[in-house]
C-alpha cells in the first residue's frame, strides 16, 4: 500500500487499473462498472466489500444513477455526480495516496472519465458492538452506558452530554499502517492552555506503525515511564469523561478501544470512582473512608503482620498474642515465607480466574482459594492468621476503583513485605517514605500527582478527602482553569 503522492489520471480506466494494481491479491477489493449504457470504463465504483454496505450502495446510489442516466438531457458525468451528491457527503480526492486510506475507512470511490480526481462517499457496512453496560466501573445509581470499540459512537455519547461549543475535539490519524482515529477532547476555558498545547504537540508527533490500544498513547504522554503508578486515568464511562472534561481535563478517545484516557489525573481521583457522585454525601464519605482504610490495608497488611510478629511482639495485645501462638505452633516456615507463599498463591488464583472463561472462572477461584487456604492450614504449612491477613489484603485491594492503581499497590506490597521481614516497622516506614517521596515527585502531564493535598483554602483541601454537600461545594461555572479541583 506504499503510495507516492501523485495526481490522478484523467482517464478512469487508467485510474482503475492503477488501483487494481495497488490492491492486487486482495479478495475483498471490488470494482463495479456503473452501467452498460455508459460504455466501458466511463465510470466505475471501487470499494472493499467487507467494509462497505453493498446493499445500501446499490439501492441508494447505483440504482439512482441508472435511472438518471436514462434521462435525455444533461451530460453524462453531471448525471452521475448529481446522483452521488444526493446520496451523501461526497469527498473529492485528487491524491493517489489518499484513495486506499479512504477505502479502508469504509468508503466507496467513484471514478469518472475525464475527471482527474475521485469522488468518495462513506458507506460503512460493518457491524459494531452495541452500547452495553460498564463491565469494570459498575455502579448502582449512575447511568448504565459504557464506551464501545467504535470511536464515533463513543464521541456521540460525549456530545449528547455536553452541548457546548466550548468542547473542542481534535482528530488525529495515528499509525502508518493502522491509520487509527484518535480524538483529543477538552473544554476551552476550563483546560489549562499550556497543557492542551502540550498534549496536542505530543499527539501530533506520535509515530508508530500499528496503534491497537490507547495504552500506547498512555505510554507516550505519561511523564514517568518507570513509575509503578498510572499517571493517566482511564474509564469506560461517558459520564466520568464528561465530569473530567468539565473539571478541565483532556480526554483521549481511540478507535478500537472502549476505554477513554483522562489526563491530567491525580492520585486521589484514582481513589474516587464516579459512583461517589451518585450517592448522598454521607454514604459517599463513609465509603471514601472505608476505601482509604482498605488502601492502607492492601498496601501494608502482610508487611505489618510480618513486622509485628517477628520484631515487635510487644505491640500485640497479650490475648491476641496467645491466639497467634497457638496457630503458629508447629509451622515449619518463617512468617515472611508463609506470607509470601500465600500472597503468591493468591496472585496466581486471581490471575487464573481472570484468564478462565467467565462461566467457570468465579467458581474455580472460590473453590481454589478455599481448598488451598484450608488445606494449607490443615496440613500445617501456613498458619491461620496469615490466611486471614492475605485474604483481607486481597479483598481490600479490590475496593480500589482504579484498576491500574490497584495493580501498582498489589505490586508494591511485595517489596514492603521484604522490608518488613528485614527491618520490621522501621523498614516499612522507610519503604513508605520512599513511596511518598516518589508520589510527591510524580507528575501527570505536568500537574503534580498528589495535587490538592495541600491546596490553598480549607475547602479545596477538604474536598480532596470528603464529598461536601452541594451547598458547600465550589461553583462549577468557574472560567478559571481548575484541573486541580478534582471533586465535584
Amino acid at each position: 500500500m506504499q503510495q507516492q503522492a501523485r495526481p490522478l489520471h484523467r482517464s478512469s480506466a487508467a485510474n482503475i487499473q492503477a488501483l487494481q494494481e495497488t490492491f492486487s491479491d486482495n479478495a475483498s477489493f471490488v470494482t463495479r462498472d456503473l452501467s452498460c449504457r455508459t460504455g466501458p470504463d466511463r465510470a466505475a465504483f471501487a470499494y472493499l466489500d467487507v467494509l462497505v454496505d453493498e446493499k445500501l450502495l446499490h439501492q441508494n446510489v447505483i440504482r439512482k444513477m441508472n435511472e438518471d442516466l436514462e434521462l435525455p438531457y444533461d451530460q453524462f458525468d453531471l448525471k452521475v455526480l448529481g446522483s452521488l451528491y444526493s446520496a451523501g457527503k461526497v469527498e473529492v480526492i485528487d491524491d493517489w495516496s489518499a484513495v486506499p486510506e479512504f477505502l479502508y475507512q469504509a468508503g466507496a470511490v467513484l471514478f469518472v472519465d475525464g475527471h482527474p480526481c475521485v469522488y468518495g462517499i462513506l458507506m460503512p457496512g460493518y457491524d459494531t458492538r452495541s452500547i452495553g453496560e460498564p463491565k469494570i466501573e459498575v455502579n448502582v445509581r449512575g447511568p448504565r452506558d459504557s464506551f464501545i470499540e467504535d470511536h464515533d459512537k463513543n464521541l456521540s455519547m460525549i456530545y449528547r452530554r455536553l452541548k457546548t461549543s466550548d468542547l473542542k475535539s481534535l482528530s488525529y490519524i495515528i499509525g502508518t499502517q493502522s491509520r487509527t482515529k484518535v480524538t483529543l477532547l477538552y473544554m476551552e476555558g476550563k483546560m489549562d492552555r499550556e497543557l492542551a498545547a502540550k498534549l496536542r504537540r505530543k499527539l501530533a508527533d506520535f509515530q508508530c506503525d500499528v496503534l491497537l490500544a490507547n495504552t500506547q498513547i498512555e505510554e507516550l504522554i505519561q511523564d514517568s515511564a518507570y513509575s509503578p503508578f498510572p499517571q493517566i486515568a482511564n474509564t469506560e464511562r461517558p459520564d466520568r469523561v464528561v465530569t473530567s472534561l468539565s473539571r478541565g481535563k483532556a480526554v483521549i478517545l481511540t478507535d478500537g478501544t472502549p476505554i477513554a484516557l483522562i489526563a491530567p489525573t491525580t492520585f486521589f481521583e484514582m481513589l474516587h470512582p464516579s459512583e461517589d457522585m451518585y450517592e448522598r454525601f454521607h454514604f459517599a464519605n463513609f465509603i471514601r473512608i472505608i476505601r482509604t482504610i482498605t488502601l492502607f490495608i492492601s498496601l501494608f497488611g502482610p508487611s505489618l503482620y510480618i513486622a509485628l510478629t517477628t520484631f515487635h511482639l510487644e505491640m500485640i495485645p497479650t490475648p491476641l498474642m496467645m491466639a497467634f501462638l497457638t496457630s503458629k505452633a508447629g509451622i515449619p516456615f518463617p512468617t515472611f515465607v508463609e506470607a509470601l507463599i500465600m500472597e503468591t498463591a493468591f496472585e496466581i488464583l486471581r490471575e487464573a480466574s481472570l484468564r478462565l472463561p467467565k462461566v467457570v472462572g468465579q467458581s474455580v477461584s472460590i473453590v481454589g482459594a478455599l481448598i488451598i487456604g484450608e488445606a494449607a492450614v490443615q496440613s500445617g504449612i501456613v498458619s491461620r492468621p496469615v490466611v486471614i491477613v492475605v485474604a483481607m489484603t486481597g479483598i481490600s485491594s479490590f475496593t480500589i476503583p482504579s484498576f491500574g492503581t490497584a495493580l501498582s499497590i498489589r505490586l508494591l506490597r511485595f517489596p514492603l513485605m521484604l522490608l518488613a521481614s528485614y527491618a520490621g516497622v522501621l523498614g516499612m516506614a522507610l519503604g513508605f517514605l520512599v513511596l511518598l517521596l516518589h508520589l510527591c515527585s510524580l507528575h501527570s502531564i505536568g500537574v503534580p500527582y498528589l495535587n490538592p493535598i495541600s491546596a490553598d483554602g480549607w475547602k479545596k483541601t477538604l474536598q480532596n478527602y470528603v464529598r461536601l454537600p452541594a451547598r458547600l461545594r465550589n461553583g462549577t461555572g468557574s472560567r478559571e482553569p481548575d484541573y486541580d479541583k478534582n471533586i465535584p
Partner: protein
Amino acid sequence: MTKTFLSALWVPLLAFAMAGCSPDTTEIGDIALVTAIGIDYDKENHQFTFSSYSIMPMAGGADQPGRLSQWVARSNGGSILESARNLKSQAGKTLIWVHNKFIIVGEEAARHSFSEIMDFLTRNRQIRMSSYLIVSEGKAADQLRAKVGTGDMLSNDLLGKIRNENAWGKNVAIPLHDIADRYGSPDRGFITGKIKTVFDGDMQGQKAELKGAAVFNRGRLAGWIEGDDVLVYRLLSDKQLWNSLEFDKTVRYERAAMTFLVRESKHSVRTSFRRGVPVVDIYLKFSASIGEIDRTLPLQDPSVIKQMERLVSKELEKMMDTSLHHYQREVKVDILGWADLFAAHHPRQWEKIKADWSTVYPAVKANVTVDVKIEKLGLIRVLKD
C-alpha cells in the same frame, strides 16, 4: 526524576547495611511468653531465686490446631540478672518478657533486697512499667506453682482478680511505674498488692489468693494491712483507685440489717497548719444504693432515708477514723502520701517539720467528713412480709 527515585531507593538499602537489624527477628513459633515472674531472696546464702511462668505454643496433631502449654521454671544466682540468665539453661525457647503482667516478690526479698529488685525492674528494657508488682506472703515461687481455681492460666486468672477488685475493694494492685515513682521518696511509704496461698480442701492443694496489701516504708517491706484498711486506702488515694470502685457496707438501722452498695463521687483532701499543727481535712461524698434489707422499712418516707444517709455517713467516718488511726499509730507509715501534699502546699512549714516527719506523722490531725446520698432503693420499694 527517575534518577532521584532510584537514588532514593538507596536509603532503605543503606538501612539494611546497619548492623543489628535482621538478627532481631523472633519467630513466634519459637518463643515462650513469660506472663508472670517471681523473685525470691535467701538472706543467709545471699542467693536470688528467679522463677518464671511462661506460656508456650505446642504443635497440635494432624488436623488439630496448636495449643498452649504452661511452663514454670526456676533458677538461682548471686544477682537477679544472673539468676534470670541462668534460666536460659532450662529454656528450650526464646523467652519473651514484654508480655509479662505480674512481678511477684517474695516476702524475704521484699524485706531485705527490694532496692536491688527495683533497680533490676526499672533498668530492664523488656519489663513493662505497667505490670503489677505484688508481694507474696512466703515464697514467690510457690505462687507460680499454685493451682488456679478457674482452671485458666495463672496470668489470666490474676488479671481477672485485679479486674474484680473494683467490686470489692479489699485488695489493690499497683502498677510498677507508680511504685517506681513513690519508691524514691524518703518521707512517704506506699502499698502494693499482696498474694498468698491458702489451703483449699476441695482442690487438694494450695491456691493463690489476692487479698490485702503490703506496706513499704523507706524502700523495704514494713508490714501488711488487711480488709477495711485496704478499702480506706483506696478511697483516700488517687482517683483511679476509687473512681470505679463500688463496695458494700452493712449498717444496722433500728433492728434491720441493711447492706448498701457505695460509690465515691467526690473527693477532697486539704492540708493546712493550725497553730503549727499539721491538719488534714478530708471531705468525701458517696452515693449509695440499697442492696439488701432483712426486714420491712418505711422507705417511702423521706425522713427515713435522711436518717439512713446520716447513719451510713457515720459508719463510713468511723471506718475511716479506725483505719487512719491504724496507719498513723500502729503501722506508722505515711502510705497516703500526705508528706507530698504538705511539701507541695505549705513548703515553708514543711521545711520545719520535714526532718521529724516520722514523729510528726502519727500526730497529724485528720478530720474526716463523709456525706452519703442514697440514690437508689433497688427495684422493689417495700419489702413485704
